[in-house]
């Protein structure tokens, strides 16, 4: 598929041509990649069928399939928009000097398309082993982004991230071997027909899920995330926090809803939900206690990832086709997309603030609202979505999770959603109150930031807000290629 080939080719070309061409290639790739993602989305939407592509015309079980259903199309479009925003934002920070080759920009502009290609490969992969390779590509492209500035602590953070990620992927691979040994195929569709309850399926799926959780930084595997995401440069943090952690989450969704279609595991889903709930509470409380802005945002990512996993206990029910399961499912996916936009905007805003005042200690931000009004506005808009206030994508997502929880009588998840929203309000307000306070002596801005750069986080945050206008019901697009969940719920 073109969606994978284009970015990978661009990454290789950047490496081969080197230095000054890398930025141009990456920027030229963006409109093309966005167009491909939109075209795939439009095709899936128009035909209401899963788009399939068999490599070399060899159909599974002999060949390898790529499949784009509604979910992958939505994720691909979100990723494309976000990558374009990040690329535009990074232009001034990683602009390539005219005279000599610089290492950091070259690495950044080579890895940006690499991350993009790996993400698309994860979103359309139809074969568990191919997904493993895509996941590893993503890790290898993401880890160096953490240590772009080459300081000792970011390298230590990158190393720790890599070790967690490697543990995660090797567990995933172990699970994949067991599935192959048990059922003789790794193709998702064939596997979902052949799989049946038993020790092999249980062991394999537990191993794969545990591995993916380590990569998605779900509590208690979140230890690597804050230093890695807070230490990276702003555009890289936006990419890592917005998109890269969503890929393993996407695979857990694939595994639990596409492979395990006929094996609902409500008890295991409750465990996933409990880990998510713990992540929400711990992440939010730790975020409240941070003194530095970027660490606060990174801990808030830990909390928001927790929300994603609340969809499992709500959407998986022994009685197949619980009418509310679908609402929770849509809510979880919407949370993934709107958090991607909101978090990217907030990391960019934090980067601009750090650039303007020379530090990111929250206590020293007084009067910032006057110096950088647009940036603070972007931060606030992103925060709106994290808190789940209307109108924002975060509100719709959390409202869907809430209604599903209440309607299914699993009220304890509703309590967690509400408490998490309050805590998120707390840490966003902590920053805003400081920034909008009238300081007796306003911070002297070290550098002026052009309006154009400030506009990009605002635009991304607005995307997160606009997602708040999608109708409050199971989305038809996400439904394509998904016969197992009953249509119903909020109407």
């Amino acid at each position, binding site marked *: 598929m073109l969606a994978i080939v284009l970015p990978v080719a661009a990454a290789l070309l950047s490496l081969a041509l080197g230095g000054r061409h890398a930025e141009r290639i990456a920027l030229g790739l963006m409109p093309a990649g966005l167009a491909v993602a939109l075209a795939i989305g439009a095709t899936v939407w128009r035909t209401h069928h899963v788009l399939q592509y068999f490599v070399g015309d060899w159909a599974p079980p002999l060949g390898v399939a790529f499949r784009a259903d509604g979910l992958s199309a939505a994720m691909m479009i979100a990723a494309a928009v976000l990558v374009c925003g990040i690329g535009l934002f990074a232009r001034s920070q990683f602009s390539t000097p005219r005279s000599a080759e610089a290492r950091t920009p070259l690495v950044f502009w080579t890895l940006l398309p690499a991350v993009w290609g790996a993400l698309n490969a994860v979103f359309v992969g139809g074969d568990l*082993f191919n997904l*493993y*390779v895509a996941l*590893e590509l993503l*890790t*290898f492209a993401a*880890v*160096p982004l953490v*240590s772009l500035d*080459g*300081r*000792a602590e970011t*390298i*230590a953070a*990158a*190393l*720790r991230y*890599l*070790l967690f990620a*490697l*543990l995660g*992927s*090797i567990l995933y*691979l*172990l699970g994949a*071997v*067991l599935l*192959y*040994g048990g059922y*003789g195929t790794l193709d998702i569709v064939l596997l979902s027909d052949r799989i049946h309850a038993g020790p092999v399926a249980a062991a394999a799926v537990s191993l794969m899920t545990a591995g993916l959780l380590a990569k998605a930084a779900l509590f208690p595997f979140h*230890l690597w995330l804050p230093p890695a995401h807070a230490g990276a440069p702003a555009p890289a943090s936006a990419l890592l926090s917005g998109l890269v952690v969503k890929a393993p989450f996407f695979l857990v969704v694939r595994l639990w809803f596409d492979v395990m279609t006929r094996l609902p595991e409500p008890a295991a889903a409750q465990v996933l939900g409990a880990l998510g709930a713990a992540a929400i509470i711990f992440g939010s409380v730790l975020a409240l206690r941070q003194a530095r802005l970027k660490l606060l945002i990174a801990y808030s990512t830990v909390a928001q990832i927790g929300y994603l996993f609340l969809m499992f206990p709500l959407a998986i029910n022994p009685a197949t086709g619980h009418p509310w399961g679908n609402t929770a499912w849509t809510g979880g996916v919407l949370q993934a997309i709107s958090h991607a936009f909101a978090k990217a905007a907030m990391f960019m805003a934090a980067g601009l603030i750090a650039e303007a005042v020379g530090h990111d200690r929250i206590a020293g931000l007084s009067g910032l609202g006057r110096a950088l009004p647009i940036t603070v506005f972007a931060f606030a808009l992103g925060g709106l979505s994290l808190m789940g206030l209307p109108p924002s994508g975060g509100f719709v997502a959390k409202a869907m999770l809430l209604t599903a929880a209440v309607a299914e009588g699993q009220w304890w998840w509703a309590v967690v959603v509400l408490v998490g929203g309050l805590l998120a309000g707390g840490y966003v307000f902590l920053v805003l109150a400081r920034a909008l306070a009238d300081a007796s002596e306003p911070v002297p801005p070290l550098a002026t930031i052009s309006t154009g750069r400030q506009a990009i986080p605002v635009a991304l945050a607005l995307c997160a807000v606009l997602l708040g206008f999608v109708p409050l019901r199971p989305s038809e697009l996400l439904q394509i290629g998904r016969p197992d969940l009953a249509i119903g719920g909020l109407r």
Partner: protein
Amino acid sequence: MSAATVYGCGAAVLVGLGLFGLIVDSQPLRKILAFNLIGGGVFLLFGAVARRGAAVGFGGDPVPQALVITGLVVAFAATALAMALLLRLVGITGQAGSRSDG
């Protein structure tokens, strides 16, 4: 006990040892080696699976072998990346142990 079972048990032992090392050891180099141990176990398991597939009557199931080759390349790249990061870290700080992780 067939050969495939022996290999499967060996793989389980290797994975267990590696997992223990990865979690318990605090030295990054040992962690990287432990990861390779798990990798060895998983690849051995691939071999056992290929052999078991062969019990159906074929000479051997070729798919796991193809997968193992890909897996080896990926694991090798992962080790190289981790070693590069570790070397750079040692070059900057002069010590291999990362402070606060366990």
